């Protein structure tokens, strides 16, 4: 079965969702991505990544509770599907393998 290739932002978003668990909705995902990457990532970038990951079948979303400060609008929580976990694991193995092979090359450069 072909591996699902993940982009840089898709990686960050998937890992953020994994870390946040049940509280993975728009705002905490953005905060986690910014904190972990050290970059000032825009909201639009995160929502587009979430959309792409759902289209790839790696994520599933559900509507949760609403709160007064949200004007009564429900939160959309995200969760990794088994295919999403598989994609992350395969990506990790690929990068670990690359670094094992090329670490000495980087050190010599």
């Amino acid at each position, binding site marked *: 079965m072909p591996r699902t290739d993940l982009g840089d932002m898709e990686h960050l978003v998937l890992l953020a969702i994994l870390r946040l668990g049940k509280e993975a909705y*728009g705002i905490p995902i953005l905060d986690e991505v910014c904190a972990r990457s050290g970059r000032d990532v825009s909201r639009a970038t995160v929502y587009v990544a979430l*959309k792409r990951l759902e289209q790839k079948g790696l994520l599933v979303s559900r509507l949760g509770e609403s709160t007064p*400060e949200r004007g009564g609008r429900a939160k*959309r929580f995200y969760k990794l599907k088994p295919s999403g976990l598989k994609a992350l694991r395969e990506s990790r193995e690929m990068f670990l393998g690359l670094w094992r092979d090329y670490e000495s090359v980087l050190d010599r450069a």
Partner: protein
Amino acid sequence: MMATDHTDDTDETRVPRTLTMVARLIPAWEREAILGDLLEDAESRGLRGARRTAWLAGECGAIAAGLSVQRVRAWFVLPPVHEVVSGLAIDGRAVLRGGAGGAALRALLFVGSVATLVLGVELLVGSLMSAAGF
């Protein structure tokens, strides 16, 4: 009895009219959750009045634009731009010059350009009508 200076907290959960129009560009099934996220974030940042409206409209517009581009990209498999340009520059010129094949390719390019323009206009009109509430 002295009138108390009461601030109605629910005022800040109102969606400004400007934002409602811009938000219509976001696909319907995602719109409410994204609007809710933006309202919650604006509240946590302590934004009020015109600053709040401008911030919400800006963020909403950027999200709508990003999601719209993503939707259009999903309809096509787009090669990298530099590959298309270099391919046309290197191979296209010779092909376009010669005979029946060149004429057919020129015709295809013309039809493709018109189709792209029509699609672009349709998307624009659809987005504007959606934003206006139709």
